[in-house]
């Protein structure tokens, strides 16, 4: 079967095949790598072939100068994450017939990462973040003797298989919305690994970890958009791990941050009125005494007033609000 592949080429030495046409630069925030040129190839492969099969065939028999990282070909080594039709996927897991759109599949290095050559991006931002969460066990004392393992329930180990399944391909970070606008954000993979250790019953520094992760760049800088859950090829579901960390951090008492205040203000509003009170949400999240940040929101407030959009100053309760209070009461836990 014939497939057409449009490959994003880039060579810092400026050497390009003649038929590689210049492409448009990507808009912010996906403009972190130089503009590339696009070269079209036709490959003859079986119907169920994947994007990587095509790239290997191109590299081996059509243009040896195409740079692409790959090793296992079976979604284990994590080498071949790249943009396929504008989203981060493993090339070895992306079926050509599923991705062919308007007669072709477009493959390129993700523009959210620095670029080295062709389909090879610089993964340094990814590995830096991984390192930043101290991804190693801080052994709980006493460490069992050298001939003995920690005794822990199997369920607590199985709970972590999802995170250990991470192959560090970087697809989640490449498409992370928060990372795109915020380079400091630790990102989905590193935070999922942070949970992998913070959630390990053999780890002694869970609390210290949660404290670190509650700071700027950590768990509260996630915008909760589920891109990482969608793009992860191994079902790690990083966002879900970030949400677990948020719960753990709050339970551990790390509540003096805008993220927690936001959650508290939100819950309070729903509990007392059945509805969200937009008017108090912002100031409560920022903290009433954070005057500088409070002032920054004023222009927006004026704009709302001018447009006649300001929510009613006296927040209306829904009918039967007592029912809602009773539910909060009965469920208990946080926000009661």
């Amino acid at each position: 079967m014939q497939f057409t592949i449009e490959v994003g080429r880039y060579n810092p030495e400026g050497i390009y095949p003649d038929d590689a046409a210049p492409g448009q630069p990507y808009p912010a925030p996906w403009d972190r790598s130089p503009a590339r040129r696009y070269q079209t190839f036709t490959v003859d492969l079986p119907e169920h072939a994947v994007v990587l099969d095509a790239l290997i065939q191109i590299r081996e028999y059509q243009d040896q100068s195409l740079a692409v990282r790959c090793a296992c070909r079976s979604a284990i080594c994590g080498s071949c994450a790249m943009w396929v039709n504008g989203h981060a996927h493993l090339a070895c897991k992306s079926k050509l017939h599923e991705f062919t759109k308007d007669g072709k599949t477009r493959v390129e290095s993700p523009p959210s990462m620095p670029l080295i050559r062709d389909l090879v991006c610089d993964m340094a931002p990814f590995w830096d973040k991984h390192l930043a969460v101290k991804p190693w066990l801080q052994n709980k004392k006493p460490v069992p003797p050298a001939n003995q393992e920690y005794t822990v329930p199997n369920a607590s180990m199985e709970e972590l298989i999802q995170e250990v399944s991470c192959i560090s391909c970087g697809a989640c970070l490449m498409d992370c919305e928060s990372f795109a606008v915020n380079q400091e954000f630790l990102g989905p993979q590193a935070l999922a690994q942070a949970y992998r250790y913070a959630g390990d019953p053999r780890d002694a520094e869970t609390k210290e970890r949660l404290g670190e992760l509650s700071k700027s760049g950590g768990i509260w800088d996630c915008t909760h958009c589920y891109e990482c859950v969608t793009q992860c090829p191994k079902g790690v579901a990083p966002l879900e791990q970030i949400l677990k960390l948020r719960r753990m951090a709050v339970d551990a008492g790390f509540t003096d941050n805008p993220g927690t205040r936001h959650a508290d203000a939100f819950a309070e509003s729903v509990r007392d009125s059945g509805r969200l009170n937009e008017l108090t949400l912002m100031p409560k999240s920022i903290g009433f005494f954070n005057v500088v940040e409070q002032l920054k929101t004023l222009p927006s407030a004026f704009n709302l007033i001018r447009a006649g959009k300001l929510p009613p100053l006296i927040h209306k309760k829904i009918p039967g609000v007592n029912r809602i209070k009773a539910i909060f009461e009965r469920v208990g836990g946080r926000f009661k």
Partner: protein
Amino acid sequence: MTKDHDVIVLGAGLAGMRAALEAARHGADVAIVTKVHPIRSHSSAAQGGINAAIGETDSWESHAFDTVKGSDYLADQDAVEVMTQEAPGDIIEFEHMGVIFYRGPDGKLGTRAFGGASQARTYFVGDITGQALLVTLYDQILKAGVKVYEEWFATSLYMENGGCRGLVAIEMVTGELHLLRAKAVVVASGGLGRLYEPSTNALICTGDGYSLAYRAGAPLMDMEMVQYHPTTLAGSGFLMTEAARGEGGYLLNSEGERFMKRYAPNKMELAARDVTSRAEATEIAEGRGIDGNVLLDVRHLGPEVILKKLPQIHEMALDYLGIDMVKDPVPVRPGMHYQMGGIRTDVHGASKIAGLYAAGEVACVSVHGGNRLGANSLLDTIVFGRRSGKASAEYAKQTPASTGGEELLRAEQERLQALLARPYTGETPAGLRLELATMMDAKVGLYRTDAGLHEALDALAGYRKRYATIAVGDKGRVFNQALTFALELGFLLDCGETIIRSAIERKESRGAHTHVEHPDRNDVDWLKHTILTRAADGQAEISFAPVKITRWKPEVRTY
């Protein structure tokens, strides 16, 4: 540019990183040189588990006996004793590092059954055991702050006064060639699966270490022992873990029969790999296959076991064949998987060359002999990785630093320049690689004949001639993979030659080496290792060494 370290480890899979960590613990300034990021190493593809005799119902002697029997009595028993005795400690150490091993109901480590083992002694993390060990070890390397030259491709070992004192490597991102000097070098660069088509191995398994060490004068041992795994996925040839059978999966022929009862009535599907692979090949050859495959059936295990303990192979069958293993059996066939032979070392990982150590698949201690048992390879990497790390660090302590090597660097620069400057002849390196690998599978695979092996040797000589003229289709510096592909092909040719030469010598059938004209094991003449050394004229010189027998005399091998 020139850089100096005490110990350089080539390769960042389990053996390499374990060696580096241990060398660092012994005070060495250690650096890892690896052509891919450590996490991309092929150790991550090991699925099923890692063996050790832990607990009162098992013993290291039992583990050692199973290993020796599995090896078809070619393993050196002193090395097997070391490995099986130290296995529990190494596994517990990895548990302490954070590996999330499966637990039994008591919260203690739990096991699964594996082929060729008299007891269930395989410790595991789902079917991603290699990956779980690899990421944990990588994180330990980060914690220890070990220097990693990531995406640096080694082109040559640096030899000085008969000792190994470093290597020359290309920094892929810049294309710059560097001299990395050291007092000791540990080669832990993994296998050579790309020499065979198909193979379960990754595209990066190109036999670099075997060839580099061989060219430097290190002897290679038992290279004819190439393992075919019984269950590789139809088509792609991807590995379907032995754990599928360890958990109770069946092998069926086209008549729906569990044919292993005719080959290994006691162990059935859990016979050793060489036995099972040959049984499958026989079924297929006698017309009871399905398009050149047999079936792996795990349906009776139920969705719970399949999804929890075998999730990765379930995903692979679904991704690459569209088969849901919960509902249907999956077609599998024997496929090239592992090289038992390699750089000959002692139990400390030391080769015959001063300062040159080796560990993992690239090494031959030998603990696997003629046939490796499933779940012994991960064990091999961490036991002998650790041992070679320690030994190399200690060697480095009493060895003065080298100040030479500039000549080699210049020579390598010239060699690569000449390679890049070669005109295009119409021959693609990839085409040549495929021809070589297809030939190896056909003539130096599961069954071998005298005629076939000699044809293979002739063919190889022809490939060498053609290789001498191939051109590199990329003239740039940055990330020139066409150049490294061409160099890798050179490594593969060396590996192919040593395998064929050893296979021609061994006139018996033992372990993975099945010689059609010599179908029986011959302990009188062949209870010995084949050893190949590269002579000054570039020719392979064969010699032999006795197998070390400590307590298990060769017996008839049945399962």
